[in-house]
């Protein structure tokens, strides 16, 4: 009979590092860390059966942003109409027109309580903000033609979102004395309630020009 008190032979583990390095390199190469990013939107639910769910919006509460087949943008509300021929004009860099984001900001804020801009309603937003007048029922309606290019559409969407982001940033500075990125989740919700993104993407229409 063999003696049972033999020593257990040690396993040579020096190649372990090599093997695991090999596996590591494989996963390093295979994994793609790039996170997808984009402009988040919420679509309205599909229209229910026959009844049309068209909501009546007062003219003064509506800012129509129309991107046509030539990728020009028309912004119109009760105050008047503005045309932007290209992206640089949208951003207010050339042409001397007010940038789209400033138009949107003016529209959402209505600081002058103009009768041509959305009506102000007093609302309570809790602790540091308190009761402030806001344009609770404003709507920014982004419309497009069938042959509008996706690029131009995204550029317009981006400018509108930029307006809201700047408003939220200003709100955070004003009420919490810090930047929006540094707020707690609760405070962010407060600011988001103060400036909700009310962007409507209209039902498709063909305004002509595009086939």
């Amino acid at each position, binding site marked *: 009979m063999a003696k049972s008190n033999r020593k257990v032979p040690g396993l040579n583990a020096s190649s372990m590092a090599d093997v695991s390095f090999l596996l590591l390199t494989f996963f390093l190469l295979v994994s793609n860390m790039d996170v997808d990013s984009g*402009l*988040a939107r919420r*679509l309205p639910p*599909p229209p229910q059966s026959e009844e049309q769910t068209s909501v009546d919006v007062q003219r003064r509460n509506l800012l129509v942003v129309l991107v046509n087949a030539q990728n020009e943008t028309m912004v119109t509300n009760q105050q008047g109409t503005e045309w932007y021929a290209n992206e640089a004009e949208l951003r207010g860099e050339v042409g001397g027109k007010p940038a789209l984001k400033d138009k949107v900001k003016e529209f959402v804020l209505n600081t002058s309580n103009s009768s041509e801009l959305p009506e102000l309603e007093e609302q309570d937003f809790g602790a540091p903000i308190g009761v402030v007048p806001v344009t609770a029922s404003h709507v920014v309606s982004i419309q497009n033609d069938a042959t509008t290019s996706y690029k131009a559409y*995204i550029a317009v969407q981006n400018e509108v979102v930029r307006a809201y982001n700047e408003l939220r940033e200003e709100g955070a500075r004003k009420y919490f004395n810090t930047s929006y990125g540094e707020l707690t989740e609760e405070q962010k919700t407060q600011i988001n309630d103060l400036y909700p993104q009310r962007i409507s993407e209209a039902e498709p229409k063909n305004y002509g020009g595009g086939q």
Partner: protein
Amino acid sequence: MPEMNTASMPDIVFAILFFFMVTTTMRSETLMVRVKIPTASEVQKLEKKSLVTYINIGPPTDTRLGTGTQMQLNDRFAQVSEIQDYIAQEKASMNEADQPLMTVSIKADEDTRMQYITEVKQALRQAYALKISYSARKGEN
């Protein structure tokens, strides 16, 4: 010259290895459409990859198939009418608690006509996939 003790190196390497094993997603579909996504400055990151479903829209990479806009779902070309089934399928494969959080990322080529996008959007509405994201690269513009 004193030798460095490398006994703990496999442990460290294993730790990194596990990290990559967990974070990696093996499903990398080959794109059959050319997608040059637009740039935008106000993009948000889509956090949970498991909640995101992708729709790729653009002209086919294989030029023999023409230059018309095509849509790729999973690994094949599809018609807009197939979106509903696709969304239902993707939803079914998800955790029930995650289903309402499902986000559809529309990766469309920047030269796509809006008509196509609008059709896709309408189909997504019908499929009750209401959270969407227009995929865009972060860039200065």
